[in-house]
């Protein structure tokens, strides 16, 4: 396989298969794109796990973008134990979520962990969930060491408190229910077939005794286990004086059951157990489908999960790891590079550059001076700092946003799903019809037909087609959308989305990239020799600006550097091939006030070589590609508004698409929410497209909160939907799709109503044998399901075809 690689002009990394463009390390005749990859390769070779490379081509995970992480919080016994699934004297079991799992080789390697450390007993991967369960001897290997081990081979676990949740599949129950219902369906059908064919079963009097009895027996598990949930939910609804879809379903089931038993035991007939089980079977499949659609989205994460789960507390001289919720105001904390500020606190160190990107979406870090208040949710860039906690995390500024009553349960007006609305009347009507026809027959003195009419009405009218239309259509729609990089919270959200008529945009991180920025050089560009040195120097600093510029500069071979210094918040300096190079703030490079004119909302980094200042890099936000088209295509059908937290600098730029009066700048989160409330009072269905936590109030308040992110890991608990930034241009299509999908639901309703009308008209006259009724019923459900799936697939092809698939796997 390495031969095929050799052909390529740019060498690919032996381990991760990425291009070795930034650096190139040779080792044992193999090329590596970075030190990290080489180390992993070494480790695998040492432990003779190099078969890894034969399971798939260059299957490794690149270490280039790997963040340096501090797992010391795992030293905290109480906490690390809380992560374990199981623990006894010698063995612990833990389940990790490892986003890096992407191919069969990952499974192979992660299940061979025991070769890397004798302390590991066994490990088991779940490829779909991207989790691995590891059982290990905790005397030989601590959880911390285990995590570090995984980190060392670039399979860094993403540690969340909710790691522990769902260690058994939530589907087991419904699988059982479907299986049993299906089994009973098949078998009872067997016993009923003779009757279907009107055949001479009852010449065989033994059989005529045994079959009904067997049927009666088979019915029990269906009614008392597989159909359970319908009864429960129906009962729950009734208790709140409500009627949901499950009420008629339950009535239908109960009637079928009781009537069948009546027939079996008093008329020695076969009953309609096959219809009963068939009905339940189909219903369950619909339900399963609905459940299935939820496993894509693990939303509504606890805000805490954005924070380090424990923090370094300074006690006297020494540091110690304490659990986050144990810290109180006035505690002194030490925050390291890339760590998150757990609570609003006072900066004790002289200076700190803090990246609030997932609070505000602002990619350029903010420089704070000593004694300034820094806010929870920010991420430290550069050297470690000391802070004094002002508010304990629970009350922190972010938490306040959460506690905002508008986020509390039920803040969003309890929209009732269309299906439920309909089912109310539906049920009432059906019951009425059933009772009336029953009464009429009694009045006519025909009890037999009375019973038949009553049951057949309920069976035929059993609204499973109705019940299926929504979950299947919208559920399938959810899946299609999530494949296309747009994640929706629930089928209900899809319905809400389809009703939107007004859209509000946030600016930073929504209309602009939150991870990319535009670099412009003012002044006179140094010659390549110098630039090579500069690039190397930038690569030394973790500072985001350095990173942005480093990536912006063209490729140069790495240079040798001496006495590197980084004064955080100021700049960096070093000696490269004899020249002293300084990079950073104006006053840092030549202690003079800036002479280049200052650009609004942009940050600058100056270059100074041997005391001579060449000029500066201007870093500026970049609007996403073709947002123009976005506005144009949306403005036709929707009322568009802009609510931005920043100064109005880009107003001019945006004017070409948005009317000035629809743009509002320097808005605080609270204000944004006010606006939305106002519009909603004006009977608009508002969608808020925002980013970051400080929009959450607005997101929650809106009828559909849409979070724009660059990566799914940046969850925003407030929203109803998450859209990858690069797919923002697809928003119009998504809206159209959702509308179409909802029309499909209506179509499904109509179809099943037709069935009901036709069926009922026969049923009331007691012309329908329940068998026919029950055969008609699954057919109707089936055709609705068919319509739903095929329809949705068609629509997906029509609107979403040009989507690039989301990049998982």
């Amino acid at each position, binding site marked *: 396989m390495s031969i095929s690689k050799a052909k390529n002009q740019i060498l690919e990394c032996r381990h991760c298969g990425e291009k070795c463009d930034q650096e190139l390390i040779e080792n044992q005749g193999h090329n590596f794109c970075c030190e990290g990859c080489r180390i992993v390769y070494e480790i695998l070779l040492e432990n003779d796990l190099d078969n890894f490379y034969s399971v798939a081509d260059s299957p490794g995970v690149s270490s280039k973008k790997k963040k340096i992480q501090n797992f010391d919080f795992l030293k905290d016994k109480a906490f690390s134990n809380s992560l374990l699934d199981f623990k006894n004297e010698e063995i612990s079991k833990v389940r990790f979520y490892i986003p890096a799992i992407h191919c069969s080789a990952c499974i192979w390697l992660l299940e061979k962990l025991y070769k890397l450390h004798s302390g590991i*007993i066994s490990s088991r991967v779940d490829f779909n969930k991207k989790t691995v369960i590891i059982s290990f001897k905790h005397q030989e290997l601590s959880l911390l060491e285990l995590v570090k081990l995984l980190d060392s081979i670039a399979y860094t676990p993403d540690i969340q408190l909710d790691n522990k949740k769902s260690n058994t599949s939530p589907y087991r129950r419904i699988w059982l229910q479907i299986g049993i219902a299906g089994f009973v369906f*098949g078998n009872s059908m067997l016993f009923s*077939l*003779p009757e279907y064919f009107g055949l001479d079963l009852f010449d065989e009097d033994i059989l005529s005794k045994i079959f009904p009895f067997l049927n009666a027996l088979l019915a029990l598990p269906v009614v008392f286990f597989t159909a359970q949930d319908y009864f429960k939910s129906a009962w729950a609804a009734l208790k709140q004086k409500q009627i949901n879809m499950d009420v008629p379903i339950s009535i239908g089931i109960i009637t079928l059951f009781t009537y069948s038993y009546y027939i079996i035991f008093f008329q020695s007939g076969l009953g309609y157990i096959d219809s009963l089980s068939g009905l339940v079977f189909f219903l369950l499949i619909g339900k399963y489908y609905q459940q299935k659609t939820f496993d894509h989205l693990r939303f509504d994460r606890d805000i805490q999960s954005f924070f380090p789960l424990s923090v370094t507390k300074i006690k006297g001289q020494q540091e110690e790891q304490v659990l986050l919720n144990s810290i109180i105001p006035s505690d002194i904390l030490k925050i390291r590079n890339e760590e998150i500020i757990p609570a609003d606190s006072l900066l004790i160190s002289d200076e700190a550059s803090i990246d609030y990107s997932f609070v505000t979406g602002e990619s350029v870090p903010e420089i704070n001076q000593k004694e300034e208040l820094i806010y929870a949710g920010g991420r430290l860039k550069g050297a470690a700092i000391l802070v004094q906690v002002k508010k304990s995390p629970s009350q922190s500024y972010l938490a306040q946003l959460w506690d905002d009553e508008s986020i509390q349960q039920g803040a969003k007006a309890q929209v009732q799903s269309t299906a439920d609305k309909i089912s109310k009347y539906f049920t009432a009507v059906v019951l009425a019809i059933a009772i009336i026809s029953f009464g009429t027959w009694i009045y006519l003195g025909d009890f037999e037909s009375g019973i038949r009419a009553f049951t057949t009405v309920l069976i035929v009218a059993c609204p499973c087609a109705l019940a299926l239309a929504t979950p299947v259509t919208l559920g399938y729609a959810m899946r299609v959308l999530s494949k296309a990089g747009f994640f929706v919270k629930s089928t209900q959200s899809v319905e809400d989305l389809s009703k939107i008529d007004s859209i509000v945009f946030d600016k930073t991180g929504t209309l602009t990239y939150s991870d990319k920025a535009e670099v412009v050089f003012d002044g006179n560009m140094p010659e390549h020799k110098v630039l090579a040195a500069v690039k190397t120097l930038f690569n030394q600093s973790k500072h985001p600006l350095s990173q942005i510029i480093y990536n912006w500069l063209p490729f140069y071979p790495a240079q040798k550097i001496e006495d590197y210094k980084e004064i955080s918040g100021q700049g960096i300096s070093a000696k490269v091939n004899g020249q002293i190079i300084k990079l950073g703030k104006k006053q840092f490079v030549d202690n003079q006030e800036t002479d280049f004119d200052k650009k609004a909302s942009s940050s600058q980094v100056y270059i100074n070589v041997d005391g001579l200042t060449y000029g500066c890099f201007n870093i500026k936000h970049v609007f996403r590609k073709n947002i123009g088209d976005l506005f144009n295509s949306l403005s036709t059908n929707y009322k568009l508004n802009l609510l931005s937290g920043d100064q109005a600098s880009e107003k001019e730029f945006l004017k070409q698409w948005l009317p000035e009066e629809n743009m509002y700048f320097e808005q605080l989160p609270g204000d944004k929410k006010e606006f939305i409330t106002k519009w909603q009072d004006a009977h608009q269905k508002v969608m808020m497209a925002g980013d970051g936590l400080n929009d959450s109030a607005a997101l929650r308040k809106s009828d559909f909160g849409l979070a724009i992110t660059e990566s799914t890991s940046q969850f925003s608990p407030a929203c109803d939907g998450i859209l990858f930034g690069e797919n923002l241009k697809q928003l119009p299509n998504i809206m159209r799709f959702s509308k179409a999908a909802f029309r499909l639901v209506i179509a499904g309703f109509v179809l099943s109503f037709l069935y009901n009308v036709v069926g009922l008209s026969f049923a009331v006259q007691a012309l329908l044998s329940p068998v026919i009724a029950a055969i008609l019923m699954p057919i109707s459900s089936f055709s609705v399901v068919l319509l739903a799936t095929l329809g949705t697939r068609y629509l997906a092809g029509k609107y979403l075809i040009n989507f690039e698939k989301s990049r998982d796997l």
Partner: protein
Amino acid sequence: MGIEKFHYDNKVVKYFAIATVIWGAIGMLVGLLAATQMFAPEANLGSEYTTFGRIRPLHTNAVIFAFVGNAIFAGVYYSMQRLLKTRMFNDALSWINFWGWQLIILSAVITLPMGFTSSKEYAELEWPIDIAIAIIWIVFGINMIGTIIKRREKHMYVAIWFYIASFITVAVLHVVNSFAIPVDFMKSYSAFSGVQDALVQWWYGHNAVAFFLTTPYLGLMYYFLPKAANRPIYSYKLSIVHFWALIFLYIWAGPHHLLYTSLPEWAQALGTAFSIMLIAPSWGGMVNGLLTLRGAWDKVKEDPILKFMVVAITAYGMAVFEGPMLSLKSVNAIAHYTDWIVAHVHIGALGWNGFLTFGMLYWMIPQMWKTKLFSRKLANTHFWLGTLGIIFYALPMYVSAFTQWLMWKEFTPEGILQYPNFLSTTLQIIPMYMIRAFGGLLYLSGVFVMVYNLIKTAKAGNFVANEAAEAPALEKAVSKGKEYWHRVWERKPIFFTILTTIAILLGGIFELIPSFMMKDNEATKIEAVKPYTPLELEGRDIYISEGCVGCHSQMIRPFRYETERYGEYSKAGEFVYDHPFLWGSKRTGPDLHRVGGKYPDSWHFNHMYDPRSMSPGSTMPPYPWLLQQPYDLEGLPDKITVMRKLGVPYEEGFEENVEANALAQAKGIVKSLEADGIETVPEAKIVALIAYLQRLGTDIKVETADN
């Protein structure tokens, strides 16, 4: 706890593989011989032991239980150890399984040509062998289940499920269908009679196909196809659904083998309905198999192993579609008794079972000998020989099937049969039979190419009898305090399997007792129908042991073209004393249910001595030995007693003067032969046979076309 080192047992796999190849070759060779006799009866080498009637069951048994059976064991023993990351439960059991099975086959090879047969298709072997089969099968089961218990891999791969299902079901089917009461060491009478026997037989017959030729092979497919293609199965979910759906449906489809027979109509309808339903899961399997190779067809092009598997899966798809079609009454009317069925089963056997086995062997042997396949080229040659073989086999069979149907049912405008003489049809299709035999020859020669190739491969490599492997021990299921009862389950999956099996057997036996008491036949009883006389009974046993049922049915369906040709259609009540039933499943020769009294005794005598003297061009072999050999007079009393046990109303003490009774009737026949100038003795087998043939269908003889 910790990593455990262990060894896979390759030796037993090797032995099973070798047995597969050897028995395969033999079984097909016998098949070829039988096929030749279909157009050239002389090919029976003039010996009773190699005559069609006796070697047909040998062929079917050799191919099904020797070739496919050993292949199953080989595949299961190989894949199971690796899927469960453990050596087989117990080496001793493995070897008992191996040698036991070979002995059973050997005894079949000996007894069947000698004419020891129960005459039930695919269950011809007599009761001592039946018991042996049951025992060895259980040994296999214990070994398998033991392996599952001591497994190191928590998850049971779908293939394992298919193996378990096959084991349990085959065990049950075999036991139930083999219920019989022995007369002597090598003779027994089926516990069931007539319609009941037929029903049991085809409930078994169908499920034997389902659970011996299909489910184990699906298991093998789910293991060896991904292995050979080195890519995971297309959809593992689908394979799971596929399994459970199949299992829940298969068991019911049996009765479709008895459409238009005297079986209650609704039972026939039921068989049809479930057969149709089976298409879905069956095709699920096929689709899953084929889609596994999606995007890898270039690989398939140069890899003979994958080629074999692709054709195998396709053949499976065809067969499982054709099957349900055949269970549609209208289609069945055409196909039943004709060569269509022969074509159908051979597409399954040659295509699905044969080709998958070859693919498996070509992949497995190099693995165990740690080498590459000796010659890809030869494997390709084998592939093409085999494929052509199948085509040359199946197509002529379809042609002859339609010829048979068209000619059998053809009426002249005057409303009389166009071809009243059955022979005219037979002669018509002889060329087809020749081509079919050629197809078989091609297929067989392919097998020999494989044998050479595999031997060379083995020579090149060096066999690893015990392959070292390592895996972490499987730790006990850890679970929360609650749901204790279900935790117990987790530990004892097997406990349930065993429990179920026992329950089934007990349930089965218990439920069968009443039916022994035959109260049952009262329903269908016809007063005129009387038990066979001792001589007729003896004649019937000769009919059975000569395998006449292989070519002659005894079940006239209610179609005009059949009643015109053979007489009044058969009634369920006529078979109440038939232990076993002899309805047959194929009409190479005419139906015999109403042959009684159709011809004089002398005709039968001459016809058995030399068929062509009576019907020129007949492909029926001569049976001269029936004229020399005496039938077993002393055995008769026991037979009568057993029959009485089975509910046949011979009055008490009848067995005392059975021999006299028989001889008296024999003398009568001898006299009638003398009248036509034929000399013979009352003790000759031919006499008994004639007695039986003349009795056939005469009980309720009503005015039929021929007299």
